[in-house]
């Protein structure tokens, strides 16, 4: 392992650990998890799917805003390695998607068409339950090396702990409710991106960057900013103005 990468890995864990210690915004933390995975592991993109009370997977974070990527992840409600990983609570590795068309007849052609060649899905585990799956998508054929698998699972485990804000919750109903809160926060975040994109004529990733920039500059939780925008207690124009001011001063 190169010293630079080792330092990057340490930083990723230190950052998550300090978030856990200080208090954090779940959606923001999960977003960081997928970005860290895409950066640190030998994969192109990462996405995180959480299950609702019905066992249906929902996308809660993705390292890439590319529409195709989102499509691929969402397909996994019915069919795909992330869904199998969630159901079996064990990692599912597909070194070459070309060989897996029989196993996932809907998912594989779509993933190949989007330019992906391999997929590795890791379970989000918490004690006895499985919360969802972390999907790692590569653009070249081949297995993920052991170091990467261990590191990916480590990041996923930290994020699983973070999902449960009430650490003592043993009751499955409470666990589900907290997961639902994370899912709802994601819905509001996407709605807020839409509001900013429409008003500022932005792409979704630009809208997200504007919102995150505003949240950081004002030391607010990303979810709180998103909630404010959608409920219109925070003027979307204020966030857009802040973003364009930052662009011009840079």
């Amino acid at each position, binding site marked *: 392992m190169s010293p630079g990468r080792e330092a990057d890995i340490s930083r990723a864990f230190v950052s998550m650990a300090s978030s856990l210690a200080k208090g954090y915004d779940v959606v923001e933390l999960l977003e960081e998890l997928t970005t860290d995975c895409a950066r640190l592991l030998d994969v192109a993109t990462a996405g995180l799917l959480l299950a609702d009370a019905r066992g249906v997977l929902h996308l809660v974070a993705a390292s890439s805003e590319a529409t195709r990527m*989102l499509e691929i992840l969402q397909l996994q409600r019915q069919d795909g390695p992330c869904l199998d990983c969630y159901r079996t609570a064990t990692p599912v590795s597909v070194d070459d998607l070309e060989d897996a068309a029989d196993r996932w007849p809907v998912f594989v052609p779509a993933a190949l068409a989007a330019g992906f060649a391999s997929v590795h899905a890791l379970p989000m585990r918490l004690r006895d339950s499985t919360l969802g799956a972390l999907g790692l998508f590569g653009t070249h054929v081949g297995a993920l090396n052991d170091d990467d698998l261990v590191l990916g699972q480590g990041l996923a485990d930290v994020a699983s702990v973070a999902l449960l804000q009430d650490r003592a919750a043993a009751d499955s109903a409470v666990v589900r409710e907290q997961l639902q809160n994370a899912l*709802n926060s994601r819905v509001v975040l996407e*709605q807020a991106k839409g509001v900013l994109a*429409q008003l500022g004529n932005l792409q979704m990733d630009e809208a997200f960057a504007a919102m995150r920039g505003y949240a950081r500059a004002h030391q607010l939780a990303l979810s709180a900013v998103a909630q404010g925008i*959608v409920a219109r207690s925070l003027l979307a124009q204020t966030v857009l103005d802040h973003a364009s001011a930052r662009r011009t001063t840079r």
Partner: protein
Amino acid sequence: MRELEQLREHLGAAMVGADTPLAAADQLCRACVEMLEVDGASVSVVHEGATRGTFGSSGELSRRIDEFQFTFGEGPCLDAVRHGSPVLVADLDAATEQRWPAFREAVVNEGVSAVFALPVAVTTSYVGALDLFRQSRGQLAEEQISGGLHAARLAALPLMDLMAADVNWDSAARGDDGWEQLASLERVEVYQATGMIVAALDVDPVEAVVRLRANAYARAMTASEIAFAIVERRLSLDGPDWRAGSGGGSGL
């Protein structure tokens, strides 16, 4: 587990073929009575801007019981919506049961001993409740609660159609399985497009998703397809079909 899977499938198919949103809600309520071992079921709407009241029921008695909540302005359904969580009352007649005195007296007189109110959400807002009634005392079994929660998810579909004032029901997705319709709505691009509609039309997110769905009907598209078209700016939100009254059926 297998049984729960079957229950879900039955509930998902319960609204197929309904020719109005009200008929769809009635059919869902009757499916609840058949499958969840309750004696009655109803769906009520509690949302700003919509007419509050009972919308859909398994029968006349259920409708009357449900309407007591609106007559007296109190009841488990209203509480379930307010708090966004289920209100399960296994014994309405218990001496310790102090909530909703007027509602309680009225429904106990009608022979109801237990009420289970499950909130119904559209995106992240609670807009109504599915109420299950029993003549005998006692808690619902774990599996019946799960089934009830599934039914409450599905109940969002006719409620959205009710809120879309002039939805063109002829072209609506009434033939589709409820779960497929929900899956098409619960997607990232739908949430993003909803936000764009909020900004473009100056409406709240519930109204925005209602209009998105009505416009999808009018264009014979799924919610997800129309959302992609909006997010990718292939479909403008300036057209007349997006204005007041939910547009939908006209001009196409």
